């Protein structure tokens, strides 16, 4: 398995995880726990439906899915921007709702997010310096100490000193992403939710940013939830991956296992949309029919049955539950492994 990168602790944990069934409590309680979380907008838009997900401290979990899959809603629930309609979300053993009610600022320091559009996430009429001092002002952090920390972070991220005098439209996309990272790090968070951190970046510079994020994870003992539509990034960077379809998690597995042998037919189809450059490595292309149904009126039974190439009669009526399927993976399918990537 993962040999080179992860630090001792992480390796230790992932070894543990493989040995024990996921549903039972591991030795260290997970940092993040979503239990049966649903989000319904306006009474009919089921943006999230019965989502259960745990993220261990120090882990990097990837989230993939297409539009309407609920990735963004899941992120917003996790950082406390969208309250769940039902189910519970807890970070560090206490529910987000309770933390937001009793000590909201402490929760904000604990959980931070990197927004997808990095340039737009910086206030357009503020200098970068002022934006970076927003967390210090909002949280009344001890000034001298915080300034010192901020200076150290800027240097660590390789941002030039004069960047603080500039406005967001005067810096590059790569710099804007780093400013976003710096702003989050000032708060010394435990969990960082990164929504498409490499979207819009050219492939020649995305590696640099990902290396940085990986290094920071070690240095600041961070936990990441990484959302990306770039399957190569997910495959390379994350240790576990959750695949979402129409507001549900359809499969959740160690990343390597998932990419080698997806269990859910949707996972298989999604992974097959990313053809490898090397023809020898290229998997069979599975082309799904039809379009993604609307979350307002999701199909009955298994939500994927309308497009599933291997659906059977049962799938049209019985909604499958997220069930274990070996290798520490959970699959929401009556017939896992029935669609293979192999040619």
């Amino acid at each position: 398995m993962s040999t080179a990168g992860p630090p001792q602790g992480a390796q230790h944990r992932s070894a543990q995880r493989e040995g024990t069934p996921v549903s039972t409590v591991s030795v260290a309680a997970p940092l993040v726990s979503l239990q049966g979380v649903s989000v319904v907008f306006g009474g009919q838009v089921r943006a999230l439906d019965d989502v259960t997900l745990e993220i261990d401290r120090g882990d990097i979990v990837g989230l993939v899915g297409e539009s309407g899959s609920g990735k963004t809603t899941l992120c917003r629930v996790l950082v406390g921007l969208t309250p769940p309609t039902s189910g519970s979300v807890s970070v560090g053993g206490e529910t987000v709702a309770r933390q937001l009610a009793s000590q909201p600022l402490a929760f904000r320091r604990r959980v931070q997010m990197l927004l997808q559009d990095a340039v737009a996430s910086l206030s357009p009429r503020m200098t970068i310096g002022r934006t970076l001092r927003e967390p210090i002002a909002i949280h009344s952090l001890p000034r001298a100490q915080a300034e010192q920390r901020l200076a150290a972070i800027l240097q660590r991220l390789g941002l030039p000193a004069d960047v603080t005098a500039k406005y967001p439209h005067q810096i590059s996309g790569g710099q804007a992403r780093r400013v976003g990272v710096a702003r989050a790090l000032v708060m010394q968070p435990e969990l960082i939710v990164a929504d498409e951190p490499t979207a819009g970046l050219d492939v020649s510079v995305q590696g640099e940013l990902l290396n940085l994020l990986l290094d920071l994870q070690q240095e600041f003992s961070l936990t990441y939830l990484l959302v990306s539509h770039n399957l190569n990034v997910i495959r390379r960077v994350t240790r576990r991956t959750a695949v979402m379809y129409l507001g549900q998690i359809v499969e959740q597995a160690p990343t390597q296992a998932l990419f080698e042998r997806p269990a859910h037919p949707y996972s298989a189809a999604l992974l097959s949309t990313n053809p490898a450059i090397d023809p020898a490595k290229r998997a069979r292309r599975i082309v799904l029919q039809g379009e993604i149904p609307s979350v307002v009126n999701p199909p009955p039974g298994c939500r994927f049955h309308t497009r599933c190439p291997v659906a059977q009669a049962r799938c049209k009526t019985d909604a499958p539950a997220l069930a274990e399927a070996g290798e520490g993976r959970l699959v929401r399918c009556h017939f896992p492994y029935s669609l293979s990537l192999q040619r």
Partner: protein
Amino acid sequence: MAVLARGAGTDMGAAVWGTLRKVCTTLTGAVGFVIVVLVMGCALFAPWVATHNPDALDVMNRFAAPSGAHWLGTDHLGRDLFSRMVHGARVAMQVALSAIAIALTAGTALGILAAYLPARSERFVLIVFDVISSFPSLVLALAAVAVFGPSTGIVVVIVAVTLIPHFGRVARSQTLTLKSAPFLEAERILGASWPRVVFFHVLPNILGPLVILASMDIPVVITIEAGLSFLGLGVRPPLASWGGLIQDGYQYLSQTWVPVVVSSVALGVATLGFTLFGEALRDAVDPRIGREH
């Protein structure tokens, strides 16, 4: 949005200066700017600019032709037209600026509030806006004058009220756009309180377009004030106002056309100047401002 900051760097003053320079690069903008400065100058320094006491009667010398003593001649009571026009600028600017200041403040506050209110209350505010704007400004002013009688104060209040929906709708739509803007999301994730979000982040970003709209409303208000005064329902005589001057002249059109033409031209040039300036300002900052209506 971030226009005033664009390129100008850190200093707000430099940004304003830069915008003004951009305004003056176009011929129409420059002409508008000159007219605006002239009108403002007359308004501010009316007693010094005027050559005569605007209210001094000289009935023996009524309808005097323009001359060295009376640059633009005299009216039906022998009052110096030039001086009355200069003082008319003062009245026009007082009405316009105070009405717009009230409308801008109230409209912006209501607009931001509406954007943050729950859907039902927001709809109520919007209906109120719709009700107000279903009255043509002049017609609502007439209804108010019918009740309260003509006075400058009523003109200011009514014009302000009719402009509130204008600013309110723009403030609301701009705030709604901003509400989902990533940088406001980022503020919420950082834990910023709502006053901090509204005053430090929303307001600075919507104020620019609103101020430009306000500048474009100046000629509209001048027109309404002049119209009401022309009907004798606005500023009360003998206070000089452009609309009143036109009315005075119109009464005696059969005897001389000079006062009518002179005061109409003054009014027309002033509204044209403010319009040209306001539009050049908008084009310099963001040509799309105010296009949603």
